[in-house]
């Protein structure tokens, strides 16, 4: 499956709101199917580099299986991993985007269509009764995070948020005295304890802020940042580098088999802390981190640079 071509995107006129909504829904559904079956370019490239560099026999065998899996998923158009997660959308919506009011419905419609077309696994479970809703729908499924910005375009980062890779996640509030040193220790300990279950090598997102919810949200945004990017703040960048080296030195390797590298990237995002708090959060992604950014213009054309 390829990214929809420009001319396939939008055929209806802007005055026909319903028709446009449905077309946009279909295009976004196709992109979600593509995301379930293909890694974004940056993740795939990093995995190939790690496989190439690896010398450990057991680790190499796992990388071979991973590369075979990527190739089979591509040729058969099947979900790379059976855990297709709960679809998450991080939306930066221009206040003047023509379909702003309909966008939530369009995203939910796209997730429902992709659920049938990919197919995605039903992963929405009632927390009290443990009943699976059976259609990936339920309170906050799909999950949509909104940010309203100036302009008439929309940027959506879609992420298929898996269960195993989310297990090491945490958010908590430290005292300033504990601060960054304690935060580093907790992150390394958590990856040592639970990293192997999250399908390493891992993408690591770290958030720092004034309260647990802010840190948690930032850790997810950090996780969704492209591989190979750095935080613009020199001290945050140093923290990324230090954690990257520390976590690789754990020698977890692919599927826990050891080897040279244990993480694809460590990304840090931060906000101010309160004089009395130092909140930190960890979000982890598996080697098959399925995340892509789509931009929708005022003309409703959809563009993504994350796939070939």
């Amino acid at each position, binding site marked *: 499956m390829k990214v929809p071509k420009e001319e396939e995107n939008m055929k209806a006129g802007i005055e026909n709101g319903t028709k446009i909504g449905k077309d946009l829904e279909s295009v976004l559904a196709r992109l979600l199917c593509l995301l379930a079956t293909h890694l974004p370019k940056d993740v795939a490239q990093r995995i190939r580099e790690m496989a190439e560099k690896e010398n450990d026999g*057991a680790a190499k*065998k*796992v990388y071979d*299986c*991973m590369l*075979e*899996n990527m190739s*089979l*998923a591509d040729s*058969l158009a*099947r*979900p*790379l*991993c*059976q*855990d*297709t997660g709960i679809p998450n959308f991080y939306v930066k919506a221009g206040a003047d985007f023509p379909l702003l009011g309909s966008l939530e419905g369009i995203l939910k419609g796209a997730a429902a269509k992709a659920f049938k077309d990919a*197919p*995605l*696994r*039903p*992963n929405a*479970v009632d927390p009290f009764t*443990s*009943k*699976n809703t*059976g259609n990936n729908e339920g309170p906050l499924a799909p999950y949509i995070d909104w940010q309203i910005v100036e302009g008439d375009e929309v940027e959506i980062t879609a992420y298929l948020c898996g*269960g*195993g890779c989310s*297990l090491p996640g945490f958010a908590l509030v430290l005292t300033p005295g504990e601060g960054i040193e304690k935060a580093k220790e907790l992150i390394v300990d958590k990856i040592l304890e639970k990293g*192997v*279950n999250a*399908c*390493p090598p891992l993408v690591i997102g770290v958030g720092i802020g004034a309260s647990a919810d802010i840190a948690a949200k930032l850790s997810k945004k950090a996780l969704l940042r492209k591989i190979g990017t750095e935080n613009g703040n020199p001290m945050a960048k140093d923290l990324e580098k230090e954690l990257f080296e520390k976590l690789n030195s754990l*020698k*977890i390797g*692919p*599927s*826990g*088999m*050891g080897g040279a590298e244990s993480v694809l990237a460590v990304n840090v995002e931060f906000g101010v802390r309160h004089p009395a708090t130092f909140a930190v959060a960890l979000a982890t992604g*598996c*080697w*098959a981190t399925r995340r892509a950014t789509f931009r929708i213009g005022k003309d409703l054309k959809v563009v993504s640079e994350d796939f070939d």
Partner: protein
Amino acid sequence: MEYHLKTPIDEETVRKLRTGDILYITGRMVTLRDEGHARFLEEGGADIDLKGMVLYHCGPIITKDGDGLEVVSAGPTTSMRLEKFEKDFIKKTGISLIVGKGGMGESTAEACREYGCVHGIFPGGCAVAAASKIKSVGGVIWEDLGMPEAMWIFDAEEFGPVTVNIDTVGGNLMKRK
């Protein structure tokens, strides 16, 4: 060592396997996760003989293909979540091999030594590669638990590589790492 095993796997063979060995399995595998383990042990009622068979920690994507069922994507899930059930499960069923991802705890290791069972690891996230080794679905039990949690019966051919993690003589690859 590399082994190509057929189910049912006898106890003598299981006790020969060592941590780090690579296995390829042909024969019957059944999937079970948290809810299925709980029901199996608390309520029973799954009319299936698992002696010498393979338990696969997996919640697959399955589609209906005409009258049959097709395995679309079926990689391993986290084995450690099933730790609290596994000792009783091994004792009750006489299962020979458990396949999942990540390590398991001392309670499972103890049951492996006592009853003759090993735990192995299939590369996490390699779900289409895994599905390509599953030739047919022999049936499903407890579909009411939902697709990920139901007990799916798979007939596999050369399913692997499965790396032995816990063996019957105290070896534990994930604990050592």
